[in-house]
């Protein structure tokens, strides 16, 4: 206890040095907490946007379609008004709404240039119960029926389209023949999802089916559940139903449908590991430097302690507790500033352009501002981590000091 008390008192010997080392540790902790908060916020916003604008809670499609869904093939389609879907609707009470979509690849043409896009045939009345697309109408109105189209802001700007203009879509039918759709632009969307803004053209489902000669065919069914948390269990139940019925269709929950987003979040978590490595480096260098300086300054004292009968391990203990104290101070300051930073991030947010210097969101379905998220476990983890690293970093230099020959230490030779 006495040695612990001495170690704590030693923290006040060189207040500036203790403060600088603690601040170095706290800076690393602060940056880690901000980064972690941003990643949480990024994940939550990305997933929310993905679910609310693109995937819904659950989708049903042919297993082979799932494998090639990025290409939006015209094979492996489902029948509209599928009996199975109606049975699902009747069997499961937690379905809020469902809709069908028919996706296919095309190019959009403004008479001068063309650009590859993906066309999505939708059922507008049902879509507004499932997705928030209507909330992001920038110009014009939500898609209705007939020879109409709805596109994103970026695509509209790039092709020079205004509401009321006619867009021309060029595509190949299932038989391999070229066809076109001329549709009046009914609405322009400005969503937080860059893919929707740049790549998608929405048209009514019947128009898509007629143009492709795919009457009553759809790519997939999309479901909104009353509770999103039921998605995983519901998909599992449906898949069991399909297996028992010998069907080749499959249900996919929102996590499976958002795997690209989750992969990007995992990439972001690697950045957090890099932050951890930087903290380890900062804390280690700071603490080693502090302990070596302290040991050099206190050589005579170390010699005196040895003369009094203190063993090397007891002298090491003093330095290690001292460093742990620096770790506690640094971690506490880091946590306090981290909490303030996370609070500001959560409530004020940060614009993507301020973060990236442009409009890119690195493929994440986000736009505008990113808001941080609270992650109490990260606070607890990094607080303990800061102390442990600070303590461990002191052991070697403390051993170096404590193993000094007492005569050389006393007489500073």
């Amino acid at each position: 206890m006495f040695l612990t008390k001495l170690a704590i008192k030693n923290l006040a010997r060189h207040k500036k040095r203790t403060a600088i080392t603690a601040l170095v540790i706290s800076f690393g902790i602060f940056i880690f907490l901000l980064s972690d908060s941003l990643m949480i916020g990024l994940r939550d916003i990305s997933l929310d946007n993905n679910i609310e604008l693109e995937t819904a809670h659950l989708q049903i499609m042919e297993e082979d379609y799932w494998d090639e869904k990025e290409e939006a093939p015209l094979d492996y389609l489902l029948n509209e008004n599928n009996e199975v879907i109606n049975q699902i609707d009747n069997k499961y009470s937690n379905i809020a709404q469902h809709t069908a979509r028919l996706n296919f690849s095309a190019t959009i043409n403004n008479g001068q240039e063309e650009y590859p896009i993906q066309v999505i045939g939708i059922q507008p009345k049902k879509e507004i119960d499932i997705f928030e697309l209507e909330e992001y109408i920038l110009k014009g109105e939500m898609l209705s029926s007939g020879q109409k189209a709805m596109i994103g802001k970026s695509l509209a700007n790039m092709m020079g389209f205004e509401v009321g203009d006619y867009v021309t879509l060029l595509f190949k039918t299932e038989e391999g023949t070229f066809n076109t759709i001329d549709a009046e632009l009914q609405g322009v969307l400005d969503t937080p999802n860059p893919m929707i803004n740049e790549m998608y053209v929405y048209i009514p489902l019947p128009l898509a089916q007629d143009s492709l000669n795919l009457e009553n065919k759809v790519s997939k069914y999309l479901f909104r559940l009353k509770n999103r948390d039921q998605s995983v269990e519901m998909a599992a139940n449906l898949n069991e139903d399909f297996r028992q019925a010998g069907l080749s269709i499959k249900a996919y929950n929102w996590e499976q449908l958002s795997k690209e987003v989750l992969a990007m979040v995992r990439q972001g978590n690697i950045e957090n590991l890099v932050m951890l490595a930087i903290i380890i480096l900062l804390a280690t260098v700071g603490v080693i430097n502090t302990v070596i300086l302290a040991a050099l300054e206190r050589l005579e004292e170390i010699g005196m302690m040895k003369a009094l009968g203190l063993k090397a391990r007891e002298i090491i203990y003093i330095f290690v507790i001292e460093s742990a104290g620096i770790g506690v101070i640094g971690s506490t300051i880091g946590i306090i500033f981290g909490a303030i930073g996370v609070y500001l991030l959560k409530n004020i947010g940060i614009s993507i352009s301020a973060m990236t210097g442009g409009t890119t969101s690195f493929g994440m379905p986000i736009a505008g501002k990113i808001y941080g998220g609270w992650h109490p476990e990260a606070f607890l983890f990094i607080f303990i981590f800061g102390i442990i690293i600070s303590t461990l970093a002191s052991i070697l230099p403390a051993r170096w000091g404590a193993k000094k020959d007492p005569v050389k230490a006393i007489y500073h030779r």
Partner: protein
Amino acid sequence: MPLLKLENVKKTYHQGKIDVPAIRGISIEIEKGEFTTIFGPSGSGKTTLLNIIGCLDKPSAGEIHYNNTKKLSELSKNELSDFRRYNLGFIFQGHNLIPVLTAFENVEFAIRIIDEMTKKERREKVLDILDSVGLEGLEDRRPNELSGGQKQRVAIARALVKNPKLVLADEPTANLDSETSEEVLDIMLKMNQKLGTTFIFSTHDPQVMKYARRLIEIRDGKVTTDKKGEDLDVPH
């Protein structure tokens, strides 16, 4: 029965390929309660001898017997630490106090690491020894709030508080003016007489020799004179 017996102790330092003998074969016996002065010019081997007696340094040859039983050369590092912890007190010329501790805490340090007393006993013991060395009322001061003589008194109190069998003092007055030196030596002599503690201290200052009760003179690592009692021709 001597408290300490040195048998042909030698110490040679190696500086590169050159051997530098510091102690060239010293055999002495120190009785319990003796107040011994080791006198000699700088570089004569006084400090080396004290370091060897204090188990801070190991002799190159020879043996040291403590209390006629223990051979110090046979002890491990940890055993030597324990030996110093329970049996020896040290006073250095630089006093080597811990600056963040008060006078009380610096003295208490020596018995806290032994941990054989209750808090109350410890407090009484420390205050008593501080009183004995004339530091009553200064126990809460830190070293930077004390004069050189007061610091050395704290160091003496720290060396004596655990009632060691032997106190070793390496040039304890080297950094003090003559008046303060006499005060410090008076205290050491008083404590020797009051507690019966054996003192061995080194000096190269002839003014200090009048305090010697036994005088061992060293030159070039050898004992040239060893006088005590009536043989001493210094005024007391």
